[in-house]
């Protein structure tokens, strides 16, 4: 899983334009968090895709968009992450570093599906 972070204009239509690039290149977004951020008038989008190759393609294309002011692949191995997963024991909420959460999800062997995994 690769995490992409970008600083974008906080306006209508911006998410559609960003998602259009993923549609065009047939890349599925695994998780996504969007919200206002520390820069006035801007929003931060943090999303994840399944592979490095996809992340590289996405970053190249997102860099061309005029609504996207900065885009990068988040390289730091320790990011906090949270997940809500469905297991045989019911819903389980997880919070920890990205690697820790990934490891717990792996061990838990979720039976149905991962509801959300967000790297922040």
């Amino acid at each position, binding site marked *: 899983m690769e995490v992409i972070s970008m600083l974008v204009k906080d306006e*209508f*239509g911006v998410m*559609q*334009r960003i998602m*259009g690039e993923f549609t*065009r290149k047939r890349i599925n977004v695994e998780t996504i968090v969007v919200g206002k951020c520390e820069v006035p008038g801007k929003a931060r989008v943090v999303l994840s895709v399944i592979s490095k190759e996809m992340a590289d393609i996405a970053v*190249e*294309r997102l*860099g*061309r*968009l*005029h*609504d996207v002011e900065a885009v990068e692949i988040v390289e730091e191995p320790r990011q906090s992450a949270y997940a809500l997963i469905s297991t045989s024991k019911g819903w389980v909420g997880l919070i920890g570093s990205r690697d820790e959460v990934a490891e717990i999800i792996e061990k838990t062997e979720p039976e149905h599906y991962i509801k959300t995994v967000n790297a922040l």
Partner: protein
Amino acid sequence: MFGIPGAATLPLYDELLDSGIEHILVRHEQGAAHMADGYARIKKAPGMCIATSGAGATNLVTGIATAYLDSSPVIAITGQVPTTVLGSDGFQEADIFSLMMPITKHNFRVTDPSTLATDFRSAFRIATSGRCGPVHIDIPKDVLTREGDIPPRPTPMPISPMEPSPDEVLVAAKMLMQAERPLIMLGGGANWSGAGAEALALADQLAAPIVTTLMGKGTVPETHPLVLGMIGMHGRAAANYALENCDVMLVVGARFSDRTVGEPASCRMKVIHIDIDRTEMGKNVCPTLGITAEAKAAMSAISKAINLKVHSSNWSEASGEMIKRCACDIDVCEDPISPRKVIHELNSILPKDAIIVTEVGQCQMWAAHFLDIKDQRTFITSGGLGCMGFGLPAAIGAKFAAPDRKVIDIAGDGSFTMVCQELATAAKNDIPVAIALFNNSRLGMIKQHQRLFYGDRLTAQDLSGVDMVKLAEAFGAEAIRVEHHQDLTPALQQAIDSDRPCLVDIQINREEDIFPLTIRTAAGPTVHRGSCPYEGGC
């Protein structure tokens, strides 16, 4: 500015009356977009088109998609229902902001009159910077009628060409000097950049042949001994042979489209890819070396870094031989008229700076294959989208951009009738474009593909029954019908010299197809030769 007014844009039209901006009333918004596109490609500056909200705006979409895929700087303005109505499915409301998003470099929906001026300035900058492309501005009607401040015009920042990095230039120079069979492939980016002289200088240093894509056609004079012509599905056999056999290929401003190189896996040579757009690197073919830079600057730098002069090599001699073997006689004197004969006559009579615009289909490919283009940006065609209906309106736009040059539309009857109403625009505004109509009363390319790939089961390709001379005359244009090859030259000359739009309805041989047709796959090329006698091994 080319367009059609509607309720949502009337406030703007009212202001246009006093603005000094020339507006050309067209007959369909698709025509307006193609005219702006044709204008932009010749003027090398933004062309503008305008449509009203709803259907007017959706009619622009085809033309804007055409401009997007050929990287042409078009500014499209659409009217929109007032902001108070937006989102309520009001009369003539369409979400054109969303519709235009994937086919423009950027688009704006202006909701505050105070940002209009800034948005327009941004639109022109975006359309013309880096890789050019269309920009769309959607303006709700109330934004056009409300008062707003116009911020002062900022001092324009000079845009310097994107220079290549010295390291990459040195690696490219080394690769080219070490190549045994170097080839230069020029695409639309090289053509737009005007990099013909730099390409020829480099070719001359390396004794490397040059091939072009459809969009690159004309970047270098096609009569030059090192220029093999266009590659691709309908390219010249000699050019495709060079593509198949080169060991290092310098690709400039091209995107390795499937119609140009076939399957990407078929490109086994080392590739140096120069493009102004980073996202082109590895999009279709992974280059050995990618250089993100403007074509002219990059080739000039590589040329300076090459301290070598190859006078000739086995490869360059083979190229010369290939050209000779590929130069078949297209002066076909027979009736019904061969389309190759029409191209032969046009090669003789068109001045060097004439602007040749094409429709899409067989007519386009006869022109692309056989016509010798002698100057940069004089061959205007819908390469990426392959948009039927492009030719006539783009020719009208081109004539506006260059009133002193001859403009001819090489048309097929299928493509032409999609936009023939723009003959009225040409006639009413005294735009003397010539139209060489390759009339086979067919969707010719459909017929050809059904013959070749669908067991000769012809369907949905018969367009007979239209009197093109009467049609052209009804719109106020001149028209000449030609049924015999001897009458071609005087008719074409009359059309080119006329001070009115003039259509030459050339009754071509309905059975003739465009050959050779080359399909490149990873397993190797398959060539349908037709009557082409060339056996160059491709």
